[in-house]
Each structure stands twice: as C-alpha cells, then as structure tokens.
C-alpha cells in the first residue's frame, strides 16, 4: 500500500467505487502521523530547551486531534453507508447489522482499536493543553509520540520490504486477490459484508473496548510524568501532579477489565467471570503495576522515601501496557487464548517500539539510581510506609508470576522450548494468587489506619480487636457450617485440602478487612472527609470482588452433574467435564432441586430456540421458564454452533444455563443413512445400536452370490436379532429385501457389498421420528451479586478518589 496512490477519480476502471474515502483517509492518516511527530518535537524542545515553542506545538496537537477524530468519523460514516469496497468495512460488518453494533464492528479489528487508542490520547491531552508548565509539555510530548507510533501501525506502509501494520482504508480488491475482483462490476456482486463475529454482538462489546482503551491511553500520562521527573529532576512537581492521574489510570483500566469479565460471563460459555486467559492477564498486570506505582508515589509524598521505586514502576507500568499489546497483537499467543488476533506482521515493529520507548528511560534511571534523593534512617515497623512497601512488593510478586506464566509462548520462542500451558489453568493460577490475596487483604485495612512515620498502638487497638473478632468468627463459621463445601473436596486429593484451607483463610481475612474498613469509612464520613472515604471504599470494593469471586467461582456447583452414565472411577473427578445432562423432550429431568422440562424447539437458519422450564421442588416460587438460544456461525462452508449462556438471577445466586449439544436442526436430519461396516462393527442411531454379528455361508457360484447377515439390534425395548438376506443373480440383478425392527422404528437393508475390502454397506431408514433432545450444562453461582457489587463499588470509588485528588491539586495550584 503506497501512500501516494494517485489514481484519477474519473478514470476508475471499476464501477461504483467511492475512492474519495481512500484518498481523504490516506491524507488524514498522513496528517496525523506528521502532526504527532512535530507535536512531539516542539513540546520536547519547549520543555527541555526552555525555548518558547508552545504555540507551534499546540497547533500541531490540534491538527493531530482533528485528523484522528476525522478518521474516526470517516470510518463510522463508511460503516453506515456500507462501503463494502473497503476491506475493513466488508470484513467487520454486514447490511443487517444493527446500528449500535457498528461501534463493536469498528473496534473488532486491529486498526479500529488502534484508532480508538489514539483518539483517547488526544482527548486526554486536551486537559493538559490549558497548562503552560513544563510537566504538561512532557506529558503532551509523550502522548504525541505514542500517537506517532500508533500512526505507523495503521499506515500500512512498506519500509525495507516489511509492511507496517495495516491500513483501515485498504480496498477489498487489493486485500483479497480473487478472479472476481478483476471484473469492472465486481462491486455489484458483493451483496453483503462478512458480518460481525456473533460473540461480539453483545452490548458489553459496545462499551468494554472504549473503556479498556481509555485505561491503556491513560497509562501514558503517569509515564509522561515519570519521564519529566527523570529528565528534569523536578520530583516535587512529579509527586503532586502525577498522583490523581495514576488513580485515573487505575480506575479506567480496572473498569475496562471488569467490563471484559462481565462480557465473558454473559457471552462466553466457559462459565465464569475470570479465566486467567492470557489476554486478561496481559491487561491485568499493568493494572497491578499502576496500583503499585500510585502507592509508591503516596509514600514519597508523605515521607520522601521510595522515589526510585516509584520511578521504576512508572516506566514499567507503561512498558507492560506495551508488552500486553505485543502479546495480544503479535499473534504469539496462538492457541493459548480464546481471543483470536491474527499475526499482521507487527511482531518486530512492536518489539522495536517497546525497545525505543522503554529501554532508554530504564538505563537512564539506572544511571541516576544512586544519586536519587533518599532518606537515611530506616522505616519504623509501626509506620504506614513500611507496610505499604511490603504490600507493593507482594503486588509485584503477583505480577511477576502472572507475567512469567502468560509469557510461556514467548519463552518457547526465545529458548526453543516446548512447554504447554497447564491443563487446569484456573487451579494453576488460583493456587498462587490466592496466597497473594491472603497476605494483601489484611494489609489493605490495617495499614490504611497506620500513620506515616510511626503509629501509637492505642490508636488502632480497639478497631483491630473488633475486626479480628469478626474475622475469626467468619473463619469458624465457614469451617463448621461449610459455606464452602470443603468436606466434599477433602477426599479428592491432598492438593485440594491445601487449596481448601487457603479458601477459608481468604474468607477470614476478607471479613476482617471489610469490618475494619467499614469502621474507618464511618469515622471519615462523620468528619465529612470524602476524599478519605472514597479511598477506603475503593479498597473495600476490591476486597468484595475477591470475596465475591471466592464464593461464586470456587463454590460454583454443577446442577447438571452425573445424573446418568458410566462411572469411570477415581481418575475422573473433574466436575467440569461430566456436568452435561441430556434432557429428552417432554420428559421431566431431575437436577438437584429442579425438575427440568424441555417443551419446544424453534428453528431458523441462524438461530434455534429451546423452551425450558425449571420447577423448583423445594421452593416452587423460585421456578422459572427460560428460552435458551443457540446461534449458528458460518465458518467457510461449515456451520458452527455457538451457545450463548442464559442466566436467571436470584438475589443470592445465578442459575447459568448453557446448551452444549443438540441434534441437528429438523430440516437437516437425514432420514436415510448409509454406512459401510465390516463384520463385528457397530452402527448407531439416535436411540439404538446394531451389532453386525454374523454372516451365513457365502454361496459364491457362477458369479451369483447369496448370503444372510445377522444383526443384533439393541433398541429401547430390548435386544432382537435381525436377518438380512442378500443375493446377486448371475444376470447382475440384486435381491435385498428390507428388514423392519420389532419396534418398527427402523428399516434396514444391505445396499452393496465390497468383497475385496470385506465391507458391507447398510442403508438405514428411520421411520419413527426419534425423540428430540438437548444437552445442557447448568451451573449455580452462589452470591455472584456480591462480586458485581464489589466491582461497581471499586470502580466508582476509584473515580471519586480521582475527582477529589484532582480538585485538591487544582485548589493548591490556584489558591
């Protein structure tokens, strides 16, 4: 794709193509790239060389913002006017796509999400434009430089034979080389677009990517301040101004991640909120580092300690954001993730950029390290900063473990290893991260009550004892009444005993911290110190998320568990696998306390509906009806099933219903099947099986053959033997009468024989419509609302905390 792709508007060989979008779009991308470059240069010079180039820099920043907003608007317009001559539009949308999913279609592709990212950089930049301080200049220069890099990723230019990224304005006929594309009127044959992936046709996918990318974009601001700090050594401005923006980054990234979890719970079938998927981990790690960074800055603000660590985390936070982009966009994760991103040849490009942006500051920081201001005396063990530092350390360890395990494909590539991902992914991560949480959660409340420098014991004594009391009470209750089904898991293996005890610890420390924080929140609310209240509520929200996850995920039950079927003994204790139950139409099936009835099926070409009713035998008022949905995704010539879970929420639990298999749609069901079998083989039909038992002596004289085959028919009503005669006369005529099964459900005959291969072809005709069925997986998530409540509380309180801290910063700046 060449930028200067001059082609006359009027002399286009192809009919009905609107090349205006191509030319204008390329122009805007070029404008974006150059203006972001010059904005970077002019802002850097203004800040570091003390030359007043602010006006020029601002001009370029405006141009940059204008061009990326125009690109955004242009592509949205192209989506709405269905310009299928453009590959991006054709690839991600279709005529029938509802208007609100145009946005999900926009950021389904790599190009769209990069544009979104750049757009947020510009919008965030507007806040700093008003300011004429050098710190703001560096932040703006950083934003512009990252935008410049994003610009190259969507340029699609060829440099040294390597194509960089992909351009959203590329034409369909250039991207896909097919004979049809050589016809002048090819566009009239392209009736519709490829359409949007059904999994993404979900309201969370309209809102989750923008918030997540706001989070990624806002990670650039603390990085900009960190660069300012190491370049100018003005640590005082750094510590004051970066703090609210670090909170903002944590809040927006956290909200984005949580929304992704909510989407996964509602749209994906793995049955949970969080699955330690590499893509989830890749965005979670920068969040952890950002939390570590903002606490480090807090320590530096209060005690002048810990500056080197704050600077290091400031660089790493952004570095890991880039690394996460590298993991998810370079295609290196391959099969280890449910999120499918293709390799667009960005691997080297991404690595190069990461190197350029992260390594120089890291080396420079290492060079500065010993000269950075430090406090000589040690922290006191009763001081807040001491324990905050421990907390930060624990978080970093958590991030190290996650990064190590998520990067296994990278290690494989680097060192030529063949490590496969763990089989039980959840257990693998949980068993480590649960201990991180057990250590971290008590710190989140006690440390919040300690004072910087030194704390008198009397201050915390009463609150600590009350909360400890509640914590111990919770622990005893959990172990004796078994809110967690620990005795059930005891028998599985020694590993689970170990896991179980950590579950009850986690429960206890969560109760302890929630009680402690509640006392603190009430105290500060009475003093009308809302900034302090917001901070403590954010911590409480996080603990509620963990507690909610503990109760709902660890404790989830499969209702559809092992009702029928063969017992395989000990080696299969995994509930996950054996939790599918078959429901016959019109028959009531028991699932724990529910009687499940499947009454009706409605088919269309794209979706099937199944009407189910759940009758709660213990509490009839909790009975409900449900219509579950099964969509068909066209993949090439095949149709793949995609079941969207249906969820029925109660205040204390969710019933999560998911179709795992169904017989093919009624229209596709074949009445006649032909199978080739050898002697002793078995044939299956929906409700029966037949074993090809015996063949009577073959009479093989004068090219005429005759024999009788014996089949053992195992039907719903018992076992019978069927005799199938077969003969070929010397004139070639075949005599093969059908046999009917005793329950008259099937007709069967021998269709053909293959003497050389010793194979017989049977033709089976189904006479009676066999009963319809559906296979369900039904899970119960207890107390999942606690998890949602924790998520909302954490996000809102963190944004509130940002607001109060920003207000404080502004009021200090203009007294």
């Amino acid at each position, binding site marked *: 794709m060449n930028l200067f792709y001059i082609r006359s508007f009027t002399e286009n060989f192809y009919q009905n193509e609107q090349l205006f979008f191509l030319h204008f779009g390329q122009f805007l991308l070029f404008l974006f790239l150059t203006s972001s470059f010059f904005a970077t240069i002019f802002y850097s010079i203004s800040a570091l060389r003390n030359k007043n180039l602010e006006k020029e820099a601002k001009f370029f920043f405006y141009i940059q913002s204008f061009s990326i907003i125009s690109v955004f608007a242009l592509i949205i317009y192209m989506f709405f006017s269905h310009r299928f001559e453009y590959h991006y539009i054709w690839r991600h949308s279709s005529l029938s796509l509802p208007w609100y999913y145009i946005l999900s279609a926009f950021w389904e592709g790599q190009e769209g999400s990069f544009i979104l990212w750049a757009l947020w950089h510009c919008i965030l930049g507007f806040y700093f434009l008003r300011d004429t301080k050098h710190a703001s200049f560096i932040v703006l220069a950083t934003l512009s430089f990252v935008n410049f890099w994003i610009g190259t990723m969507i340029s699609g230019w060829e440099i040294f034979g390597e194509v960089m990224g992909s351009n959203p304005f590329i034409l369909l006929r250039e991207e*896909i080389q*097919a004979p*049809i594309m050589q016809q002048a009127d090819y566009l009239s*044959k*392209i*009736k519709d677009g*490829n359409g949007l992936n059904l999994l993404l046709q979900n309201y969370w996918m309209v809102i989750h990517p923008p918030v997540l990318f706001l989070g990624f974009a806002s990670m650039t601001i603390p990085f900009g301040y960190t660069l300012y700090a190491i370049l100018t050594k003005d640590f005082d401005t750094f510590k004051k101004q970066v703090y609210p923006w670090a909170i903002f980054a944590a809040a927006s990234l956290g909200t984005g991640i949580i929304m992704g979890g909510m989407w996964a719970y509602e749209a994906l079938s793995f049955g949970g909120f969080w699955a330690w998927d590499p893509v989830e981990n890749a965005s979670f790690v920068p969040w952890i580092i950002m939390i570590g960074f903002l606490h480090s800055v807090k320590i530096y603000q209060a005690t002048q300690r810990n500056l080197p660590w704050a600077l290091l985390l400031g660089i790493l936070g952004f570095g890991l954001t880039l690394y996460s982009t590298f993991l998810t966009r370079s295609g290196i994760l391959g*099969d280890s993730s449910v999120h*499918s991103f293709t390799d667009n040849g960005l691997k080297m490009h991404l690595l190069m950029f990461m190197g350029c942006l992260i390594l120089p500051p890291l080396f420079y920081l290492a060079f500065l390290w010993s000269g950075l201001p430090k406090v000589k005396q*040690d*922290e006191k*063990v009763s001081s807040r900063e*001491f324990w905050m*530092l*421990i907390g930060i*350390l*624990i978080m970093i*360890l958590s991030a*190290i*473990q996650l990064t190590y395990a998520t990067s*296994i494909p990278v290690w494989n590539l680097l060192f030529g290893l*063949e*490590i*496969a*991902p*763990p*089989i*039980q992914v959840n*257990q*693998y991560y949980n*068993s*480590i991260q649960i*201990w991180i949480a057990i*250590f971290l959660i008590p710190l989140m409340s006690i440390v919040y009550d300690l004072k910087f420098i030194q704390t008198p014991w009397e201050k915390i004594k009463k609150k600590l004892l009350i909360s400890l009391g509640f914590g111990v009470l919770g622990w005893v209750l959990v172990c004796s009444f078994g809110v967690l089904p620990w005795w059930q898991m005891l028998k599985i293996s020694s590993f689970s005993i170990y896991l179980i005890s950590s579950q009850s610890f986690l429960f206890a420390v969560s109760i302890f911290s929630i009680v402690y924080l509640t006392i603190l929140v009430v105290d500060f609310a009475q003093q009308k110190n809302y900034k302090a209240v917001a901070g403590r509520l954010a911590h409480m929200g996080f603990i509620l998320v963990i507690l909610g996850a503990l109760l709902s995920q660890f404790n989830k039950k499969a209702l559809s568990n092992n009702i*029928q*079927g*063969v017992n*395989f003994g000990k080696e*299969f204790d*995994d509930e996950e*696998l*054996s*939790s*599918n*139950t078959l429901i*016959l139409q019109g028959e009531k099936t028991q699932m724990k306390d529910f009687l499940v009835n499947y009454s009706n099926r409605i088919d269309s070409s794209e979706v099937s509906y199944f009407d189910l009713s759940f009758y709660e035998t213990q509490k009839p008022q909790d009975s409900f009806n449900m219509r579950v949905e099964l969509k068909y995704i*066209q*993949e*090439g*010539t*095949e149709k*793949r*099933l995609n079941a969207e879970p249906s969820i029925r929420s109660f205040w204390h639990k969710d019933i999560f219903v998911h179709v795992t*298999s169904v017989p093919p749609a009624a229209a596709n069901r074949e009445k006649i099947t032909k199978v080739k079998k050898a002697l002793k*083989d078995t044939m*299956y039909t*929906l*409700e029966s*099986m037949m074993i090809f038992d015996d063949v009577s002596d073959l009479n093989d004289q004068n090219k005429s053959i005759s024999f009788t085959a014996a089949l053992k028919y195992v039907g719903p009503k018992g076992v019978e033997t069927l005799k199938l005669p077969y003969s070929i006369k010397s004139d070639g005529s075949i005599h093969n009468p059908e046999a009917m099964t005793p329950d008259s459900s099937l007709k069967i005959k021998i269709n053909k024989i293959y003497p050389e291969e010793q194979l017989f072809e049977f033709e089976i005709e189904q006479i009676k419509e066999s009963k319809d069925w559906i*296979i369900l997986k039904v899970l119960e998530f207890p107390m999942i609302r606690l998890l949602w409540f924790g998520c909302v509380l954490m996000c809102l309180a963190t944004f509130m905390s940002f607001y109060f801290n920003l207000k404080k910063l502004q009021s200090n700046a203009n007294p």
Partner: protein
Amino acid sequence: MKPIHIISILLIAFVLSFLIFKNKDNTSYEDFQTSKENTDKYYHIVGNLDKTKSQIYDPLKDPNHFVFVMIDNKGNAEKVIYKGVKPDGFDQAEKIVIAGNYNGNAFHAQKILMKCPSKYEDKESLNGLEKKS
C-alpha cells in the same frame, strides 16, 4: 539487617518456591509413546483424528462419554476417552490437541482443542460469496 529486608527475602523465597513447585503443572507437548511410559504424568499430544475408526458418542446413553482414535505426529494410533460432550465441529478439525494422561488401555483426555480449517479467514467466506453471485 533491616526488618524490610527480612520480610522481602521471605516473600521472594516464598514466591520462588511456589514458581518452582508449580512449574511441574506445566505440561509439555509429547507423543503417545512417552505418555504410555509415564502414566502418572499429564501431557499435551498433537495429532489427527483417525477417520477410518468408528467413534463412540451416544448422548442418549451418556452425554459425557466420547471415545475416538487419534494418530499422533509419530503415526501411533491410540484410543482416547473424553468425559464430556463431543465438541462441535470435531470431525472437520484439521488437527486436534488433547491434554491428559494414559490410563489403563486408553488415553484419558481432560481437554480437547481443535484447529479448525480456515477459521475467520477471508478466502473461505469469499468462496461462499462467489458461489452466491
């Protein structure tokens, strides 16, 4: 030594020991032969479905019992038992990856991953498009 150093060292030692201890949960890509020799170990095995052998999946009898024969990359065929629903699109899969261990006379898979032909690829849908036009 300062208290912060002691606690830091303890924490780091704790996590490192975990990492080493948990590293055994990472499996590796092997073949049936290795799996047969180490029945207590879990492996990932890449291979193809043996389409000449019959599969057993009868949801009316047991929806959580699926048996098939897979040929690994070295050409060895083995019976595989999977205690779950037969995955959709299984017969069309180009390659299958199973994870589990060998037990008795069959490989017990805990996980089946499939590589489907041309997933999300443009060319296929364009072929469909050409047929339509």
